[in-house]
């Protein structure tokens, strides 16, 4: 035990922190995509695991073909929009249930990503291009500033878009599709738009991450839906606790990014504790399951048959006791 603790190096943790924040800021963009589909549209979109890798694959392959590393990110975004479009069409035009529609696109993207890259992973040609989002320790400050700016821009755009007539219609579709149709909103179109937006953000995030880590991998998006959800949920819990009733929409979006940062700081910390990296997904799943379960269990405690039975049994026992005492 003592040997374990003495093997932990606080300086290493300190050095790893900026990288954790940078990753959090990058994954925060993907979390905003998950927020758009999961929270705004109320659609559990499984496409994201595939569209995240798609964004990375498109970015790296275009860079290998000599394209500018900032232009390629727009291509990642566009590829993500297409992925969302496919899921949207499967769901709205072909009547496939939401989760299954996402899984179908996700699975097909696995093959598509392999075809795009020609093999399971491809490295960024660091000799011929200078990426903007780099994990190189010398430029990490620049990367942090740049990702922060990108995040702020994206939050502003989402805030603006969801406040427009079109965005309001998307929100209404997520909350009450019957009412939306009664008010003349084409709910299918709104679902497709939201899925496109969400997956566009996810793929953009994948593109930026591939620049940051220096490669794209067909499996880089695996489990990202859970990471996105973790960020959304951590953000919500934190926002409830810190801001409470005054929580507005910009704050909700910002806290989603903060959730992603916290997730990655925990990730860095757990790795620092020499926790095997392969077990991180298990840990993440447990955290997300726990947070999703908390509101349900809270409600259950107030509102359950077994709870009522216990309370009433206690009351009966008490009145029996009182009767005895009275005798």
């Amino acid at each position, binding site marked *: 035990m003592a040997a374990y603790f003495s093997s932990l190096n606080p300086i290493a943790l300190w050095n790893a922190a900026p990288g954790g924040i940078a990753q959090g800021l990058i994954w925060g963009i993907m979390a905003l995509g998950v927020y758009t589909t999961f929270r705004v549209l109320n659609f559990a979109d499984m496409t994201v695991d595939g569209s995240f890798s798609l964004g990375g694959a498109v970015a790296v392959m275009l860079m290998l073909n000599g394209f500018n590393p900032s232009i390629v990110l727009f291509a990642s975004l566009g590829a993500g929009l297409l992925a969302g479009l496919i899921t949207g069409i499967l769901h709205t035009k072909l009547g496939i249930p939401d989760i299954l529609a996402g899984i179908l696109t996700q699975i097909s993207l696995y093959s598509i990503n392999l075809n795009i890259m020609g093999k399971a992973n491809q490295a960024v040609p660091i000799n011929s291009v200078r990426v903007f989002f780099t994990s190189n320790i010398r430029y990490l400050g620049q990367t942090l500033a740049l990702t922060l700016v990108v995040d702020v821009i994206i939050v502003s755009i989402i805030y603006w878009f969801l*406040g427009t007539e079109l*965005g*309001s219609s998307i929100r*209404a579709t997520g909350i*009450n599709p019957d009412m939306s*149709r*009664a008010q*003349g909103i084409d709910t299918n179109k709104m679902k497709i738009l939201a899925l496109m937006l969400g997956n566009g953000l996810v793929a953009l995030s994948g593109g930026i991450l591939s620049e940051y880590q220096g490669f794209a991998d067909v499996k880089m998006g695996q489990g990202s839906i859970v990471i996105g959800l973790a960020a959304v949920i951590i953000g919500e819990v934190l926002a409830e606790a810190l801001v409470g009733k005054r929580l507005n929409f910009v704050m909700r979006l910002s806290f989603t990014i903060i959730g992603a940062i916290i997730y990655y700081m925990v990730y860095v910390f757990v790795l620092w504790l020499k926790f095997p990296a392969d077990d991180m997904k298990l840990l993440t799943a447990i955290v997300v399951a726990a947070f999703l379960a908390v509101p349900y269990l809270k409600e259950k405690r107030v509102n359950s048959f077994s709870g009522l039975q216990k309370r009433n049994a206690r009351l009966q026992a008490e009145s029996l006791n009182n009767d005895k005492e009275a005798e």
Partner: protein
Amino acid sequence: MLEIRNICKTFNAGTINEKVALSNVSITLNDGDFCTVIGGNGAGKSTIMNAVAGVWPIDSGMILVDGTDVSGLSEYQRAPFFGRVFQDPRTGTAGDMQIDENLALAARRGQRRTLRWGVTRKEQEKYKEYLKTLDLGLEDRLTAKVGLLSGGQRQALTLIMATMKKPKVLLLDEHTAALDPKTASKVLAATDRIVEENRLTTLMVTHNMRDAIQHGNRLIMMNEGKVALDISGEAKKKLTVEDLLHKFEEVTGGSFANDRMLLS
């Protein structure tokens, strides 16, 4: 003018759950007609409303608004012609959006949803005026989430949303059934006033015979997917609850006692 021409609807056709919900129903409402609809449980009242609104396609027949057949349009496409209020107060509004946002959604019924801002300052002022007419204090809570409102407030809001764009036909499906009697009569009074002021052609389903008699200039009784009775003009004015009960027993061939149709 609304013309429902020989419409038929069978649910789950060809299965053991097959249910003929509407068989050859024809109803014509002239401009300004206020028609109440009564009938037993499962008589097809809601089905008529849903057929007109386009919740699903009808099997056969036509639905004409001012002479144009709308039966081939999907629900959202024909929404500009109709204003709707539902039985469940939660159905007609988006609970997680603000009062003004809900109104703004309704104000754009039939228009393209653009990238302009969803609610403008100017329309907020307009909405305050609308809400004042309800006298429920909603004008001071423009940015409150609709989910925080009571059932009656939500129905009143839905009523405003349904009528602010002056629909060709107003469809009310037992919109006071989920409210307590006092709130129900308030919402009904608001309904009367709005219909009157805008001279709206209205189809109102109710399970309350007294309401069906007191409101509107015409009354239809449905039974087993058919129009069993259609009374208007002087005859409607002279109608009593006893007359209706009698008629109801006649068409159903039984007693009303175990039915939901109430005298209240």
